[in-house]
């Protein structure tokens, strides 16, 4: 998947305001909208688009968008 496409999907999932810029270095847990419901959204996103599963522990360790992409697997992105 294109990185930009992933970031778009992530913005939709987290219901982040259009005006807010999201990039690989954004710290997800510092975004106002990020909460325990966001984690469920991320699980669904990754299951639907990558057929992968992140453990509860992985999800707790998410920091930046990049850290999430590394958990999914860098080979999944271009």
């Amino acid at each position, binding site marked *: 998947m294109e990185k930009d496409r992933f970031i778009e999907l992530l913005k939709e999932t987290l219901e982040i305001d259009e005006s807010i810029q999201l990039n690989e270095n954004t710290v997800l847990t510092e975004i106002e909208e990020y909460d325990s419901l966001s984690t469920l959204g991320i699980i*669904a996103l990754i299951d639907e688009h990558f057929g992968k599963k992140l453990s*509860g522990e992985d999800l707790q360790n998410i920091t930046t968008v990049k850290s999430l992409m590394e958990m999914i697997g860098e080979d999944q992105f271009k």
Partner: protein
Amino acid sequence: MTGNVRIEKTDFYLPEPVLTNRELGNIFTDWDSGKVESATGIKERHIAAEDETALDMAEKVGQKLLKDFDKSSIDFLILCTQSPEYYLPTGACILQDRLGLKINTGAFDFNLGCSGFVYGLALAKGLILSGTAQKILFITSDTMSKHVYKKDKGNRTVFGDAAAGVIISHSDEEGIGEFVFGTDGSGYKNLIVPNGGLRHRYAPKAPEREVPGTDSIRTDNHLYMNGPEIFNFTIDVVPGTVNDVLQKNRLFIDEIDYFVFHQANKFIINYLRKKMKIPENKFFIDLEQTGNTVSSSIPIGLKKLQDSGAVGKGSKVLICGFGVGYSWAATILKF
């Protein structure tokens, strides 16, 4: 015995006090009620009063079901709860007396959560088809609110208290189809009340702790739910279970008139629906006034669908319960 069994009557009971999203927003000031409502589908939940127990609620729903009904015809009483009145005696024994059921009635409790309703139907079917019982009153009742810590924002949002019940009897037509069950006890720690049993006694001074990855606070005397792991578990087992139960009943997915899953939360079950390509108009989602009522969520759904006319004579309804244990089960009901 030849023939089959059917659900003769279904009803539910909700305790009167209501906890609205607005009230939760006043308690937890950073709580975004709009977002919570759109994601979970919950506007309010009923919370039993301090002195109203799951057994009291079971009695209420039992009375509703037995109104204008020949209660001497009931010869078995089954209660599914995880909010027991006592360690012992069995709640169903007390309930037999409170409901005025005859003395030659069999009665027992069993301990399951969200898969419990489907399990109870399987037990009832087995008891009737083996000739052991004729007419069974099966009740689910839980006060999850009494397991949840007052500072646990997440669980106070999701769970509500409720009781539901059915009367199951012998029938010439097949009313309850074949069952599929599953268990994976390796996940037991992800949905648990750690203290209060005999492994870890209730600890009056149990410290407050944060639920990782959330800003909910709980103690070990209260309910703990690892939301992400529970969601992972449902994604892993529910689609396969639905396929298995269709196969076992020799039905295709488009022959099912309605799907009633355990109402975990709107986001989770709607994701499962999309993943299985179940049309929206055949999929029951209604947590608005109840929240997640564990073992009562499926019978509440069945009653609402029957009352609205969405399910009626001839309808085939696939029901699937999943959760605490981990435990899951599914069957197909024919009306």
